[in-house]
């Protein structure tokens, strides 16, 4: 029987080819920049990352998660058993039966993949991906039939040579797609690259329920600042790009894409794949960047990315909202890549578009993005009698005011927060004119030099004083202080303090009974999660708890929590201002209108500014602390004797 000898040959040939492909692919990744990764530990941790962490993400879509478990699990099991049964010829009915079962499992999964592909949503790539379900069916069916004799269900040589030939074709097809296709660039590449990507991930902290969202610092002494060519990425970033399954979940959540700006995160990752391997986007089978035709992008490992492969407008359209990263089942880091490429454009080329250059110059000259007199930072609080750290040296809480100090609208938020702090009797102080811009905008615009300079100077000021916590109303400052300043502390870890968003802090005050709140009077309220509070820092509960404490029952938007849609204000996007067909803030307001909101509660002055920029009539926008301060029942301080009595009672 021809199959008896050909089958092992085919299997071993495909395995050899796969191995060769793997080496070839690995060499492409290795062209990237070095980054030290604990390879062994990574590999050891990989199965758990695949089966638990990744599954967690995939599981948000039950249909796909079950399908994937059946198909991928069935395949991995089948492949192992195929090697034992059909390559090594182990004659064991148990093994054969197991193989039958696993191929049935895989086949079942493949049927669902097939059904999904009958009318696929636009976010899914077509092209070779349309072939995949057939390959899966073919593979599992062929090996099922081939294994029937080994299981003793059918006689050897049943069906004659015609069937043998058909099965041979099926096996060859299946093996080429699923085995060496894996390393030679077919759809199944995701399994191979994905597994290694998970093993050698740049942010291992993300696994086991952790979070790692701070950008990595640039070595300002490096030959090239930022990423010019694909090979300027770290090797494991390149590997990460290869893990993409083109599911388009990122595309579906990207606010810039929805607004018709020339960004599609999926396409961007695929362009990075083109870059690392060389070629064009002519065969890309997904949605293009809005407004940019397919087929014109050309790139290679050593070619400047923004000269032919990716238009720089694509990179500047990103709001760094991390919706794509949050959705990506392969845990690819889109935002890192975008900022890396921006760093080159800004720091090497000086090509930050629109107001970008002006903002960066302002930051350099005045420590604030709009070029205001740095001596006017405390003008907003001229009537607030705020204790200055320079005077008191020590306080329980350092109130990080942020650049909202210069903005009339944000000042209302700041004043509301001061009122709350005072009402709760919090021992706090501010830095006053010693505070500088946190550096968030500079960093997202790719100017890590300015960011680092601001960070180091802020750290030097922070180091002068003693305090237990920093509290800020600005999620962007919150994020950099909490997650990005540590790299620049002399100890390399960070300061000995906790950083909190004001909603977290106020919620704590409410829980401790230090604030007395009246019930909110007003209509329907929804809550907009700021990206830098939610996705970046996982704080979804405190704002909601606070609103609940005000007696508000939220009308949640469909896109809320970790799926909140960006207001359009992050990542310097309003500064670079890349045109689209719609404004992101308008779309976000539509989300709010859809749930009948009369008031949108927010926790970020940037979100406030963006959403208030939507033309009226529209819901009212208020920071949560404004709602709290309006509901505050201010008590005249009780006589000392009464306070002592109260303490004794409690």
């Amino acid at each position, binding site marked *: 029987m021809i199959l008896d000898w050909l089958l092992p040959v085919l299997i071993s040939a495909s395995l050899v080819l796969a191995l060769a492909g793997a080496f070839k692919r690995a060499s492409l990744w290795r062209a990237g920049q070095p980054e030290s990764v604990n390879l062994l530990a990574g590999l050891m941790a990989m199965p758990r990352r695949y089966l638990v962490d990744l599954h967690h993400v995939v599981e948000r879509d039950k249909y796909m998660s079950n399908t994937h478990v059946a198909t991928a699990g069935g395949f991995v099991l089948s492949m192992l058993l195929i090697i034992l049964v059909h390559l090594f010829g182990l004659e064991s009915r148990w093994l054969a039966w197991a193989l039958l079962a696993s191929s049935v499992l895989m086949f079942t999964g493949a049927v669902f993949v097939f059904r999904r592909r009958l009318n696929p949503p636009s976010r899914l790539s077509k092209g070779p991906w349309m072939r995949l379900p057939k390959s899966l069916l073919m593979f599992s069916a062929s090996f099922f039939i081939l294994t029937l004799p080994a299981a003793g269900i059918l006689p050897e040589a049943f069906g004659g040579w015609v069937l043998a030939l058909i099965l041979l074709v099926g096996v060859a097809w299946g093996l080429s797609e699923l085995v060496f296709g894996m390393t030679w660039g077919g759809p199944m590449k995701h399994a191979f690259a994905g597994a290694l990507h998970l093993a050698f991930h740049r942010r291992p902290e993300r696994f086991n329920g952790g979070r790692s969202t701070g950008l990595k610092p640039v070595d300002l002494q490096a030959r090239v600042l930022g990423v010019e060519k694909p090979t300027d990425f770290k090797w494991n970033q390149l590997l990460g790009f290869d893990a993409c399954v083109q599911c388009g979940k990122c595309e579906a959540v990207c606010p810039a894409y929805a607004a018709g700006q020339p960004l599609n995160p999926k396409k961007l990752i695929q362009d990075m794949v083109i870059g690392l391997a060389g070629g064009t986007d002519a065969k890309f089978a997904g949605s293009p960047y809005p407004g940019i035709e397919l087929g014109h992008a050309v790139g290679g490992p050593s070619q400047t990315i923004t000269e032919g492969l990716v238009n720089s407008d694509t990179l500047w359209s990103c709001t760094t909202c991390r919706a794509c990263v949050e959705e990506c089942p392969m845990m690819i880091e889109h935002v890192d890549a975008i900022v890396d490429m921006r760093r080159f454009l800004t720091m090497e080329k000086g090509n930050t578009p629109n107001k970008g250059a002006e903002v960066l110059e302002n930051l350099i000259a005045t420590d604030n993005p709009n070029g205001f007199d740095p001596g006017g930072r405390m*003008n907003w609080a*001229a009537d607030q009698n705020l204790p200055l750290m320079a005077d008191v040296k020590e306080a329980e809480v350092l109130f990080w005011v942020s650049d909202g100090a210069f903005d009339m609208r944000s000042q209302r938020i700041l004043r509301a927060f001061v009122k709350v702090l005072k009402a709760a009797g919090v021992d706090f102080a501010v830095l006053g004119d010693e505070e500088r811009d946190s550096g968030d905008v500079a960093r997202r615009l790719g100017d890590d030099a300015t960011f680092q300079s601001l960070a180091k100077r802020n750290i030097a000021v922070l180091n002068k004083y003693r305090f237990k916590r920093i509290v800020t109303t600005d999620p962007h400052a919150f994020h950099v202080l909490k997650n990005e300043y540590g790299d620049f502390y002399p100890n390399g870890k960070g300061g000995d303090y906790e950083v909190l968003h004001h909603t977290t802090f106020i919620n704590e005050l409410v829980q401790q009974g230090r604030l007395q709140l009246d019930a909110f009077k007003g209509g329907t309220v929804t809550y907009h999660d700021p990206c830098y509070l939610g996705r970046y820092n996982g704080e979804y509960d405190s704002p909601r708890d606070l609103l609940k404490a005000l007696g508000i029952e939220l009308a949640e938007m469909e896109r809320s929590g970790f799926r909140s849609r960006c207001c359009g204000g992050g990542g310097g996007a309003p500064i670079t201002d890349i045109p689209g067909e719609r404004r992101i803030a308008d779309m976000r307001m539509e989300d709010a209108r859809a749930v009948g909101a009369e008031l949108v509660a927010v926790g970020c002055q940037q979100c406030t500014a963006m959403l208030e920029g939507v033309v009226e009539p529209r819901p009212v926008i208020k920071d949560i602390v404004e709602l709290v301060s309006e509901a505050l029942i201010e008590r005249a301080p009780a006589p000392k004797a009464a306070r002592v009595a109260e303490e004794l009672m409690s």
Partner: protein
Amino acid sequence: MSQYDVLFQPLKINQLTIRNRVVSTAHAEVYATDGGMTTDRYVKYYEEKAKGGCGLCICGGSSVVSIDSPQSWWSSVNLSTDRIIPHFQNLADAVHKHGGKIMIQITHMGRRSRWDGENWVNLMSPSGIREPVHRATCKTIEEEDIWRVIGDFAKAAVRAKEGGLDGVELSAVHQHMIDQFWSPRVNKRTDKWGGTFENRMRFGMEVLKAVREAVGREFAVGMRITGDEFHPDGLNHEDMKQIAAYYDATGLLDFFGVVGSGCDTHNTLANVIPNMSYPPEPFLHLAAGIKEVVKVPVIHAQNIKDPNQAKRILEAGYVDFVGMTRAHIADPHFIAKVKANQVDQIRQCVGANYCIDRQYMGLDVLCIQNAATSREYTGMPHIIEKTTGTKRKVVVVGGGPGGLEAARVAAERGHAVTLIERADELGGQVTIAARAPQRDQMAGITRWLAMEVERLGVEVRLGTTANADMIKDLKADVVILATGGRPFMEQNPHWGAAEGLSVSSWDVINGTVEPGKSVLIYDTICEFTGMSAADYLSSKGSLVELVTDDIKPGVGIGGTTFPTYYRSLYEKEVIMTSDMLLEKVYREGDKLVAVLENEYTGAQEERVVDQVVIENGTRPNEELYYELKDASRNKGQIDNETLFAGQAQPILSEPGEGMILWRLGDCVSQRNIHAAIYDALRLCKDL
């Protein structure tokens, strides 16, 4: 940051950080009751400004330091007694609570007062020269009095300091005692208190030294001066620069306030608080001139009303602080609205000077358009809160100031409001008033209301004459009639209005009748309309005689407004005739003959003219009211007890079917804009 950034640069006065560059400057409020104490109404009035964001309030215009400077005429603050200190503490706490600062103006009025009341004092002045505006005769001040008053200034300043106020402003403006000594027009002395520059300066200098010594170096002490008295024999701008520099050089002063014009005549008085006939900031150049020669901050107020104007003045660096006093009377939340990017929602002062004209009559200062001002203590709100009770359907008939205010307040409360107006535009009688020369800014009152009504989503039906059926069909819960009035021409049939022998002042100002060549205006009311008709007709080239049976034309108009009418009418050779009744009008050929009769002698005179115009006030448009009255739940009645107490009308909480009917403004009886707006506010704030 905003385009108004310059307003929000804090600036220090001595040790005080003033949070922004906007000041409510000293003005007489006429609220200090109980012998000149800053009682509840006074405190709440200033607290509202501080709450609204005003940087610095200088309260108590002409607050007296001595018992021989009478305070009761204008209920001014009395710093001649320690009794004031706890009252000041209340005032200071209320303002400081909101981050504001508060100082007080202190003065001895000298001859600028009245002696015929209170303690029946002998008024005092450097040379005993009579002051015409108050018809005030006075004695020549003696050396002993001088030193006593200097001591009183120091004691008063200490009381301000002990009361927690942030500073004092010495008044050397408006012809008070200090500038009475300064001005050679009034100071004819030959002793060490008069004559040479140093001698004339001596009294003020001794006051300043005594005050500074009493309060210490760190307490803010400023001085308000004129930039030019505008009298040939008085102090001119160069004199004032010399004076300012002289006092500044002592280093004892922390700021200057500068006002253009003296004010010891009716005509100069009108300059001090420029009404709507003046251009914006007419005397800024005088303040800027003073700023050139002094080192400390300069404050200037006079017709600065909108944030753009304030910004322009500050950005150009003419002065350091802008006084926006009437602007804050019209809207104490001025600053808050600028900050909230709600500049369009600022109720802007139009310069009608209802406030100051009441003050000069010894009446409490009220705003023509904002009835909540100074009534904060009674619960009249500047910010109207949404109701938490029943949402009602409210129909308002009449788009004049009363109807508009009713619609605005009801809409702010969250009710569904429909406003029906017969004319094609909103404004009512204000629209007519604004057509007269120099009175165009009156329209600002109703323009703001119309903008608010639009912003609040009131359904406005223009060109619609409401009738009983229409109102009933609307099935409103509350119907408010503010249908105004119409010229009262039929009072004397011999005026011949029915025969077309005479026309109304409205016909003339509205342009519905052509101006005649020679016109007799008969004005029984003696307020704005008659004067405006005369001004209007004379500006169109008519030869006008303005006749009244009252004691003088325009006698009902206050002290800062009749002079600007007079300037215009005299210039256009309008003849003003008093004490004559119009008995009859008849036609003779193509002319009209007006028969006038002297009130006191009965002697008759005749005038042959082309046109006779009658200004006899209005009669209410009350037909609709009487058609609806019986069908209403409350028979159209308003409960006065709760209305006057500023409380909700009881009917609102009583169960019942059908409409509640109220009427307000001139459709009840002829009063004024403030009366209509006040009724609308107090009726609707609890709706």
